[in-house]
């Protein structure tokens, strides 16, 4: 349905990745992120986003499939990959009593290519005071501190699990601006999970949507938003045949609203009997999840 980026310029490549737990499975997931772009990883809670990220970082053993980072197998070249990858979790895992400066010097010792000047520059850009204690930082400032640390060892790939969780709208918007600035050099890629789809409406280049451990779609965001459509109309337009066009439909006393995968086809089919609008990523996620619940 969509054009996939060529495998050769992929910075992150996940191929038929599978992992079984007692009550949940990640089934055969594949996607690719080319160098220089941002990919958002969305899906409802429990879809398998964190599991996927842990498998990429090799914090969990996979059952089958392959993960390549910078074109290298993530198990065979784990150390090389980790030195060139930055990883940010949502929860704060720093010592609350330490100052920014002290905490940074501890973390710095773990990395092969720590860049003190880069770190100082980020502190300045993010308006963080080196003497401030971690526990005194707001949630947004903690996120910036994590980013400053993650980005000060020459990483080319930034992987983040729910980085915007708990941030207020202003901190979120600042965070997204930082991401847009990071990919300016055409060398870095960013992969981050979120269940706040509006994080992706603006800057994300690619979107991968995971549901029940399976990929619903993985494509350039623009293609997704151009292809899908929200159709609204009067209830008498709906019959068994028209209903089959939809991913899922919501009806009320005064009309219906539903998601279709092919907007152009819907326009030809419904003509003036319905309104066809551009969907948001949230619409696509909600209607897809709904569609499965209702069979």
């Amino acid at each position, binding site marked *: 349905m969509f054009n996939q980026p060529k495998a050769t310029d992929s910075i992150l490549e996940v191929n038929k990745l599978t992992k079984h737990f007692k009550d949940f499975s990640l089934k055969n997931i594949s996607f690719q992120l080319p160098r*220089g*772009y*941002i990919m958002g990883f969305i899906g409802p809670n429990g879809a398998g986003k964190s599991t996927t990220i842990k498998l990429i970082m090799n914090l969990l053993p996979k059952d089958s499939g392959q993960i390549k980072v910078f074109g290298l197998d993530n198990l065979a070249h784990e150390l090389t990959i980790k030195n060139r990858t930055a990883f940010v979790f949502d929860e704060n895992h720093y010592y609350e009593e330490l100052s920014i400066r002290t905490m940074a010097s501890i973390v710095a010792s773990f990395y092969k290519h720590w860049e003190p000047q880069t770190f100082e520059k980020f502190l300045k850009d993010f308006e963080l005071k080196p003497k401030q204690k971690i526990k005194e930082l707001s949630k947004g400032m903690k996120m910036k501190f994590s980013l400053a640390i993650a980005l000060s060892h020459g990483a080319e790939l930034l992987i983040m699990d729910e980085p915007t969780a708990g941030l207020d709208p202003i901190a979120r918007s600042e965070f*997204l*601006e930082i991401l*847009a*600035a990071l*990919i*300016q050099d*055409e060398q870095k890629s960013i992969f981050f999970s979120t269940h706040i789809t509006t994080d992706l409406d*603006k*800057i*994300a*280049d*690619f979107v991968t949507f995971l549901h029940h451990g399976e990929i619903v779609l993985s494509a*350039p*965001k*623009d293609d997704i*938003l*151009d292809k899908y459509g929200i159709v609204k109309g009067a209830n008498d337009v709906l019959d068994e045949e028209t209903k089959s066009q939809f991913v899922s439909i919501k009806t009320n006393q005064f009309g219906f609203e539903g998601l279709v995968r092919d907007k152009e086809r819907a326009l030809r089919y419904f003509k003036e009997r319905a309104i066809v*609008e*551009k969907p948001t990523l949230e619409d696509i996620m909600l209607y897809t999840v709904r569609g499965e619940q209702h069979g």
Partner: protein
Amino acid sequence: MNIIITNSSPEPIYQQIVTQLKNLILRGELTEEEALPSIRTLAKELQISVITTKRAYEELERDGYIETVAGKGSFVAAQNKDLLREKRLRIVEEKIAIAIAAARVAGLKREELFEMFKLLYDEI
């Protein structure tokens, strides 16, 4: 140079950029060989995806409005003078057609419209 993106338009964002840059070039606000912002700068400033700006530039390049030199960036292409004039004339024609349609709705006669046109032409 201004580019305004609206999310309420059904027109895709890349198309909005294409239309606005074409107009800037046709109106002469962007001149031959003038450098355009890089696709990444434009994406960052407008807070949109790099793929969107890339697609817009690719379309402008295909239509001959801009040229991209590897490693140097994108520039306004040298325009064929006759073609440019023709395109500009077409814009004038389109706008006049809109005015005529509006005049018909308002019930203006041919002469009344001419009169109004003359008055406004001297004023603006």
